[in-house]
């Protein structure tokens, strides 16, 4: 499709974003093929090699139970990706629905929905997540759901703002003048044009969700050991930071590089998806 080609051509001009995209692709491959590329079993305990430093046998060293850190980071990337995408997916669905309704219908509907958004935003979301997780059983599903349900407000605001400006635009009016029903106007005219900033926000949102999950696991209320996640490896690293720096540095780097990559891709997408810039392209 020609539009996709155009977006790709613009995206390609930003080398940092391309680097970010490549890293994300590698991470996705790593997550999918973790069982094949990981040198050890992630939960295999090796009493003889507790806290051994990075070396030939264990490139990233081992943890306090002798488990291979590289293996655990590779498996941990599965958790991060799942949480990042699913949580953002949930946030996208809720945010797009709420934002579209508020922006399209305006008036009282808009006021009520947006006050609800303000209410949700006024809540410190991390505390809210902590509270919910402490009631529910902490497993990856509840974490994804809770992060998604507390993270849709920015998307809703963005979508609403896009709707407010797009619904007055001439091409939307032309569609209305042609007799298009509201459903057609919303789904065919407005929503496709409202989605670019949402995709950009979603990319940043994935990074945010990964950070939150790492934070929760670090605090011990995320993914429960022995299942590996970047956050709980870091948590173990904290206890041994004086004797085993590698337990903190490698998962930390993994989080840093991943979040940075998503953010770089987000930046690139923002420029590539702007139709005003397509015009200049010609």
């Amino acid at each position: 499709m020609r539009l996709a080609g155009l977006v790709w051509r613009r995206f390609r001009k930003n080398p940092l974003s391309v680097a970010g995209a490549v890293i994300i692709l590698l991470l996705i491959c790593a997550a999918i093929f973790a069982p094949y590329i990981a040198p050890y079993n992630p939960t295999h305990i090796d009493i003889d090699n507790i806290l051994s430093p990075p070396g030939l046998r264990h490139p990233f060293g081992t943890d306090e139970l002798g488990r291979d850190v590289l293996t655990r980071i590779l498996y941990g990337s599965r958790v991060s990706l799942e949480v990042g995408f699913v949580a953002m997916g949930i946030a996208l669905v809720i945010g797009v629905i709420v934002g579209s309704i508020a922006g399209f219908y305006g008036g009282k509907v808009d006021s009520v929905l947006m006050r609800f958004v303000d209410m949700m935003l006024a809540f410190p979301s991390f505390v809210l997540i902590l509270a919910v997780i402490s009631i529910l059983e902490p497993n990856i599903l509840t974490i994804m759901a809770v992060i998604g349900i507390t993270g849709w407000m920015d998307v809703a605001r963005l979508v609403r703002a896009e709707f407010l400006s797009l619904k007055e635009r001439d091409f939307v009016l032309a569609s209305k003048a042609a007799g298009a029903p509201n459903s057609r106007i919303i789904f065919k005219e407005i929503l496709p044009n409202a989605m670019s900033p949402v995709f950009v926000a979603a990319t940043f949102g994935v990074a945010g969700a990964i950070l939150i999950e790492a934070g929760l696991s670090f605090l011990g209320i995320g993914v429960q050991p022995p299942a590996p996640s970047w956050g709980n490896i870091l948590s173990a690293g904290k206890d041994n930071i004086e004797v085993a720096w590698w337990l903190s540095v490698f998962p930390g780097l993994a989080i840093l590089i991943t979040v940075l990559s998503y953010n770089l891709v987000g930046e690139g997408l923002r420029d590539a998806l702007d139709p005003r810039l397509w015009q200049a392209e010609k």
Partner: protein
Amino acid sequence: MEALIKAEDIRKLYPVKRGVFGKTEWLKAVDGVSISVSENSVLGIVGESGSGKSTLARIIMALIEPTSGRVLFQGRDVFGLNKAELKAFRRAVQIIFQDPFASLNPRRTVFDTIAEPLKIHHLAQNGGVRDRAVQLLRDVGLGPEVLTRYPHEFSGGQRQRICIARALAVSPRLIVADEPLSALDVSIQAQILNILRELKERERISYIFISHDLRVVEYISDEVAVMYLGRIVEQADAEELFKRPLHPYTEGLLASVPELVPGKPRRQAPKGDVPSPVDIPPGCPFHPRCPKRFGPCDKIVPRFTSSPQSDGRLVACHLWNPAE
């Protein structure tokens, strides 16, 4: 002659808030305008920017609701139509916008755009949609190869042709053309204008033709209404109006058109800017800029009516309709 569409005493006010605690003032975009268009005729509406022309166009299209007043289509108020009646209205009345860059959805192909009205109104069977789209494009001078392209691949003139094709898709009786030329190069303007005029002759389409360009309005219109600050200040047969403008504002507008006849005395163009439609001057809204103002102008609002002095022509000016 039976009017195709009629607007009665249309008013549209927008609230304007000055500061957080300031009192709400009202921007009078359209302030008591009545017009009517009959079958196969062109009503030109002229005025500077901010005169309320575009707002009026959108109200006539039933795209925004007026604060008061009615728009009658075949004798029925368009804001009280049920779903099926509204659909019939949408088939009969179409709009072309000023900015062809903003009036096409950037993410949809030309085919999507032109086929939309055909699909909504079931005007062609599945196989016939493409044929009809090709035919519509031919009517506006574009080839079938443009169907799969996106708006950003076209120039302004080409886009405006696409917009006209979309408007024509439903075979409308009336097209509201809101400054359809002003975003285009002069050489392109003539082409688009000729397409519109040709359609008038061939398809017997009526137009409400909104423009600030008097030469264009003179060329295409049968009747002309001059708007200033949301009101019509003069309305007449196009030929009469251009030959002998009555209202000083109309005179001023005519004077601002570059004259091609050397040695012809130039009339005085209106000085200064249009006042804000939030603070419309008292009395005649044009009096601060009017070279002919006298006694009653800053106190009494002139009625828009005809009188023996104006030879029965409609004008809102104390020179022609002395206040009692």
